[in-house]
């Protein structure tokens, strides 16, 4: 089973890398996300002291410290870009998850899946290779995203260590595994690629916006807070922030526990339903 999974993973990665223009664009995408989102939503610039205040150095300094206090309260950092780019790592993983579904739909349509199904490989390896391919993509692209974010001014927490980076990576991988499992099982049963794209748009945007990925939950209207607090993306984003920029996270273990449990359920359900589809035609 491992041999077949690795062979199919080799195919997925080779396909990704071989399509040179697509590969290059997929590498640039995280840079664009970070640059456009991060720098256009520059919250500090909204809080420039009004002209009267700015002229008085004493007032200006009080004003600045007030803004920073508020920023610190809300974001856990005085720099919104730092806050946002760590959340962006999770949001980006969410969107990469769609590729498991897209690739399954194409293998179904082009007859490659049938070719695989007449070989003696375990059915689950077909499913596993799709999930692993997303994890590999996310690992490569998140690394680029992080490097670019740091180059553009993201401030990592002081004394950040390998364990923190590993922790952040694991959370991002959990998100990728969970969301790609979801799209994988849908794609085996879906007859058209539109189903996956439509569901992807329907699910991903609320998952991203009604979470702490881009904005703190505390500033949301109360009905939205309820959604955001139940949203697994919030747990993931809070954890990544905890590891990378040192923002305090409420219920550290609860967040980890819930995230792991949810992803485990999605993985098992997705593997089971996918194999069931492959075996019951």
């Amino acid at each position: 089973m491992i041999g077949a999974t690795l062979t199919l993973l080799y195919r997925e990665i080779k396909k990704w890398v071989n399509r040179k223009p697509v590969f290059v664009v997929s590498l640039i995408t995280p840079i664009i996300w970070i640059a456009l989102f991060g720098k256009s939503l520059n919250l500090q610039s909204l809080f420039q002291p009004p002209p009267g205040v700015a002229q008085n150095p004493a007032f200006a300094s009080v004003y600045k410290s007030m803004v920073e206090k508020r920023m610190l309260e809300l974001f856990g950092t005085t720099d919104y870009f730092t806050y946002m780019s760590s959340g962006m790592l999770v949001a980006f993983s969410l969107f990469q998850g769609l590729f498991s579904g897209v690739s399954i739909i194409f293998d179904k349509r082009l007859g490659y899946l049938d070719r695989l199904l007449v070989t003696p490989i375990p059915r689950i390896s077909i499913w596993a290779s799709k999930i692993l391919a997303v994890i590999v993509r996310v690992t490569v692209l998140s690394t680029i995203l992080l490097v670019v974010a740091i180059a553009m001014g993201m401030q990592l927490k002081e004394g950040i260590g390998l364990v923190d980076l590993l922790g952040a990576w694991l959370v991002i991988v959990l998100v990728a595994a969970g969301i790609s499992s979801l799209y994988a099982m849908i794609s085996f049963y879906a007859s058209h690629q539109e189903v996956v794209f439509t569901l992807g748009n329907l699910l991903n945007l609320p998952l991203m916006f009604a979470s702490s990925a881009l904005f703190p939950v505390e500033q949301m209207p109360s009905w939205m807070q309820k959604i955001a607090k139940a949203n697994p993306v919030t747990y993931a984003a809070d954890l990544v922030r905890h590891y990378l920029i040192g923002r305090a996270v409420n219920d550290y273990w609860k967040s980890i526990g819930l995230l792991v449990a949810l992803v485990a359920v999605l993985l098992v359900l997705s593997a089971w339903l996918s194999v069931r589809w492959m075996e019951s035609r």
Partner: protein
Amino acid sequence: MSEYAIEVEDLRKVYPGGVEALRGVSFRVRKGEIFSLLGPNGAGKTTTVRILSTLYKPTGGVARVLGYDVVRESGKVRRVIGVVSQESTSDDEMTGFDNVYIQARLYGLSGEEARRAAWEALRFMGLENAANRKVSTYSGGMKRRLEIAMSLVHTPQVLFLDEPTLGLDVESRRELWKLILDLKRRGVTILLTTHYMEEADRLSDRVAIINEGRIIAVGTPEELKKKVGGEAIHIAPMDPQDADKIIERLKSHGYDVRKAGRIVVVKVDDASRRITEIIKLVEDVEVLEVGVVKPNLEEVFLLLTGRRLIEEEPSTTARIPTRR
């Protein structure tokens, strides 16, 4: 072990939604032979191949490949079969070699073995010079040959070819026929589906004619063609008026003669030997054309079903108004 590579008994398949694709199909394929399922689109050919290659489960009936039940022992069946489906399944942004190599690895060959097997399959299909090119640069014929190379890399004992030459030009088709016959020489049992009667005729040891989910005739191409009677000699006189004269003359010499339009059809057992005698008999009549017509599988199908194998071709009368 039985002498049959494939045994199919009363196979039935009803698709979800109620389409009855197979209504009780039975046939047996001997080891080492090329066996064709000949029939029009929608006859049930692909469904049969999909059940035999473990992709679909039958609604009823039994199918065995090399003695293994395709439902209960699907894992064993998958080890001994190769399947070439109608559509192109290769990854065209990868090289031909990579496509075949990945297949070999999926059958559990080690890196070195897989490399060797991939090159051998590519060489056999005449693709070694294109092996390191991306499949997107291949011609239609090359892509088909790559599909077969991918399906051969684990040296299967039974090969399913579903419409292998669909959409190919005449030259590529002939090239592929030669390769399929080479495979048979290597001892591979081949089940081929086609709706080209010439393909079934040229390649097959035996042919099953399939229509609307049922097999309506099985036999060697020669046996099947005997169903429409022997060969015939067609004589087209220059002046249509002479047709009756020819018919009179030949009838008096004991020939089975009839008129079809302006052509005189003479039914004979051995046309190539009789033709000189017949030409001599009508020496004094000016003749436009004389030809030997061998019975073909298309005629067999027509005789058995009243339909043609390929029906998508519009008739001339139907085409004229659309041109205007």
